[in-house]
């Protein structure tokens, strides 16, 4: 019923060379479609593919057959079947992941991120939106603005999409009634203003019938346009705005084929660069001048945001992966503490205090996130108090990194402001985040250099500082053995201190409970105390269950190389429970004690501890002797 957009235009048949010339200059727009399950999202995308002739005869035949078999549109073609992909999803009749579709018109190539509408899939929508220039928010004309509409609009705005199309779909089912359309647009405008969306483009459409998709529909004479495709073809793309900003490029790889060539490869995030430009390498702050922009097709006179290039400098300046090359006169900031919005994407909740990998641009550092300041209810935009973030939760929190990070606020620069968090044990991508600003603390709190050094402290005591980190199930014998070890060391005139789990919880950590998040914080504090004590030259002995590998590794990272000695007091759960010195297992089994390690909270045994004590093989005295022998051979 509608004309295909991608008219097999006369030029293809008549003058293919001319046609190709015209198409060399096409630009590209990436957009996402967001809507609820029944808003007709897949139908709209199927329609765009169909109208732009991205569907071939063999696919169309399959589609017609499928439409009759499993379609929801009776004998008519069910366009949604074109885009609902994986087998399991097909059976359920819903899209459950991000899928990317492609079509093109005379003016532009389009990449559509098809993102699902259910609440539990915030993660997918944020993923699809992160690369989009524009968002199409679909509304069912019969239903008006729903909770999902608000959620999708909030997320699109959060991720920085400035072009929003409000597509009021299924206009055919409300008799193309202008009053219905106007009412929805008015409601939406009020909501949009409340969350900071300053402009949007509303249009009445029918994905199923094709109204106002490729051209203006005679069914809506009251609508002056634009049609959806016309708007998509002409709206500004992000990369154009990025080119106006100061120059920044994150270095991906140093190109060094021989001693005569040293180039720095990366994709330009913002701005442009020319030979002769003064640049600054961050975080070091060293400066130089661009001499060449090297490509396989010859040197360039200029390169702009979005291009992948290789740059050469006039001077031998230190520069490697993770560094950022920037315009010398307006460099980005460097900091190690930030406020950020975090979108949690993993089944396992965020643990404040746990260390994660943070990847931003080409920099990968260790980061810890503090307890969220608040969580946002994505349906009502209310700010709620939160101790952690669960799957699909969005919150604002402070985070700190173990090294200086070159960054810009996300609102100014997606590349230097957007980051992901990676679980150090599973390697899963657990969160996406957007930096707001660096904390003033980070700018004003500096390390105070002291004259009496840690070596001096250790030298006075005539010993090498160390941390003997005991880990094991409750009742394994950690405190008993640790006590014996300290007595032996004291007899050898060593300066020691024993940090015991129960004792610390009476003072320093009395505000902490036994949830996963509190256990992480408990260990972090003990780690920091142990670190100060090693700085003072002591041999520190700690006796904590410390059930998580990630936190033990975190403490290991805090210490000087070789100073952290992990001692696994290895007892089977059955033995520990049989012993049950404090009667805790009995309570836990009776359900009176929650989050008890080994019962309803996991214990992650060390994979490669420096010392392993099998309590079935030796007495506590023998164990202490073995540990001391290992420490002081």
């Amino acid at each position: 019923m509608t004309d295909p957009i991608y008219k097999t235009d006369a030029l293809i048949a008549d003058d293919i060379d001319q046609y190709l010339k015209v198409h060399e200059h096409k630009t590209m727009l990436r957009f996402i479609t967001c809507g609820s399950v029944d808003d007709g999202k897949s139908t709209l995308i199927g329609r765009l593919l169909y109208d732009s002739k991205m569907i071939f005869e063999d696919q169309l035949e399959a589609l017609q057959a499928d439409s009759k078999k499993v379609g929801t549109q009776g004998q008519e073609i069910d366009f949604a079947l074109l885009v609902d992909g994986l087998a399991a999803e097909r059976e359920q009749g819903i899209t459950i992941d991000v899928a990317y579709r492609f079509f093109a018109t005379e003016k532009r190539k389009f990449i559509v991120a098809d993102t699902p509408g259910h609440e539990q899939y915030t993660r997918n929508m944020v993923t699809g939106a992160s690369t989009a220039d524009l968002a199409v928010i679909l509304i069912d004309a019969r239903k008006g603005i729903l909770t999902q509409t608000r959620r999708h609009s909030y997320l699109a705005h959060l991720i920085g999409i400035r072009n929003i199309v409000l597509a009021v779909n299924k206009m055919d089912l409300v008799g193309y009634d202008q009053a219905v359309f106007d009412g929805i647009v008015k409601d939406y405008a009020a909501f949009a203003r409340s969350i900071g969306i300053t402009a949007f483009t509303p249009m009445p459409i029918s994905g199923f019938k094709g109204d106002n998709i490729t051209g203006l529909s005679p069914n809506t004479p009251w609508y002056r346009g634009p049609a959806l495709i016309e708007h998509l073809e002409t709206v500004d793309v992000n990369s154009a705005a990025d080119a106006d900003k100061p120059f920044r490029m994150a270095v991906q790889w140093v190109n060094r084929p021989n001693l005569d060539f040293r180039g720095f490869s990366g994709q330009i995030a913002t701005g442009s660069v020319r030979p002769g430009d003064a640049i600054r390498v961050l975080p070091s702050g060293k400066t130089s001048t661009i001499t060449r922009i090297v490509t396989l097709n010859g040197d360039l006179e200029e390169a702009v945001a979005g291009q992948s290039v290789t740059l050469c400098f006039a001077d031998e300046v230190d520069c490697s992966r993770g560094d950022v090359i920037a315009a010398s006169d307006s460099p980005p900031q460097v900091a190690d503490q930030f406020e950020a919005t975090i979108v949690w994407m993993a089944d396992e909740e965020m643990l404040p205090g746990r260390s994660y990998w943070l990847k931003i641009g080409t920099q990968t550092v260790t980061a810890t996130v503090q307890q969220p300041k608040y969580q946002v209810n994505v349906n009502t935009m209310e700010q709620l108090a939160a101790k952690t973030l669960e799957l699909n939760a969005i919150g604002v929190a402070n985070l700190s990194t173990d090294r200086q990070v070159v960054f810009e606020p996300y609102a100014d620069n997606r590349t230097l402001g957007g980051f992901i968090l990676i679980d150090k044990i599973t390697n899963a991508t657990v969160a996406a985040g957007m930096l707001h600003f660096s904390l003033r603390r980070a700018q004003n709190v500096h390390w105070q250099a002291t004259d009496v050094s840690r070596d001096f402290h250790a030298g006075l005591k005539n010993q090498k500082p160390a941390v003997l980190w005991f880990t094991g199930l409750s009742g394994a014998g950690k405190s008993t053995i640790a006590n014996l070890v300290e007595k032996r060391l004291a007899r050898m005139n060593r300066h020691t201190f024993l940090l015991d789990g129960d004792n610390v919880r009476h003072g320093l950590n009395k505000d902490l409970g036994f949830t996963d998040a509190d256990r992480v914080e408990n260990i972090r504090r003990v780690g920091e105390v142990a670190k100060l004590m090693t700085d003072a030259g002591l041999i520190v002995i700690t006796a904590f269950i410390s059930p998580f590998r990630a936190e033990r590794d975190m403490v290991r990272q805090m210490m000087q190389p070789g100073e952290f000695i992990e001692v696994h007091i290895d007892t089977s759960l059955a033995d520990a429970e049989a012993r049950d010195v404090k009667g805790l297992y009995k309570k836990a089994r009776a359900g009176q004690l929650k989050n008890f390690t080994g019962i309803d909270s996991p214990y992650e045994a060390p994979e490669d501890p420096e010392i392993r004590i099998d309590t079935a093989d030796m007495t506590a005295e023998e164990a202490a002797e073995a540990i001391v022998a290992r420490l002081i051979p």
Partner: protein
Amino acid sequence: MADVKTLTHLERLEAESIHILREVVAEAEKPVMLYSVGKDSAVMLHLARKAFYPSPPPFPLLHVDTTWKFQEMYKLRDRMAQESGMELLVYHNQEAMDRGINPFDHGALHTDMWKTEGLKQALNLHGFDAAFGGARRDEEKSRAKERIFSFRTASHGWDPKKQRPELWNLYNARKHKGESIRVFPISNWTELDIWQYIHLNNVPIVPLYFADIRPTVERDGMLLMVDDDRFPLMPGETPVMRSIRFRTLGCYPLTGAVESTAKTLPEVIQETLLTTTSERQGRAIDKDAGGAGMEKKKQEGYF
């Protein structure tokens, strides 16, 4: 600023692909590029040469061969390895070789043993932890949801529910020992993008993509080319000379030709634009196991 430049769609695609290639080289221990000698591989190889110029791409090319490719493909393969200055590794599944597995007698088993098993064996043999592949999302429905970095277990399995979210251009390439990543740098390219890019950059491709008079037989509605004398002719069957070309290239007994007179790239593109069937239509492999054919193959470890 005076002249702000908006990149064309091909410039944006190229920049994205180069970024991906460099990220993998920076983060993986031992990457390799799977080179199938088709047009997509040709573009991927060209992008790799651009990404690392003036260095040669810092990884080898791996061709998982079935011994049943077109002769012209072997010729171009060897030439491109030499021109790019890259090491070429050719792998043959020894068991398939010994058992004489071939596309005429063994059907799906041929693809399974030579390609799927062959690929796993080759990756294990060399210990590659990242492999570039030239798959595109527009090729087939289940590919549309594939990530650019696709994680495989130590046994090369693919679990569509366990793939990592990919935000912005941040790729998480971390993995455990034994696990590997398949990386698809040209995920976002369409068939037409590929052709336009080949045209604009003079990327060398196998001459079979252009029409010529070639010996053919017609079977099950597919036009097959008699590429060598291993092609068993049915009683009474004689090859007919036809003007044909190929839209995709694989094992010659499994790859259908189209009748065509398009002898130049613009003519090929013209035909592509005017055509009414999808490019994988000439491939027998997608028809196995109904609509979910490719998805099932992927879970088993096919690219």
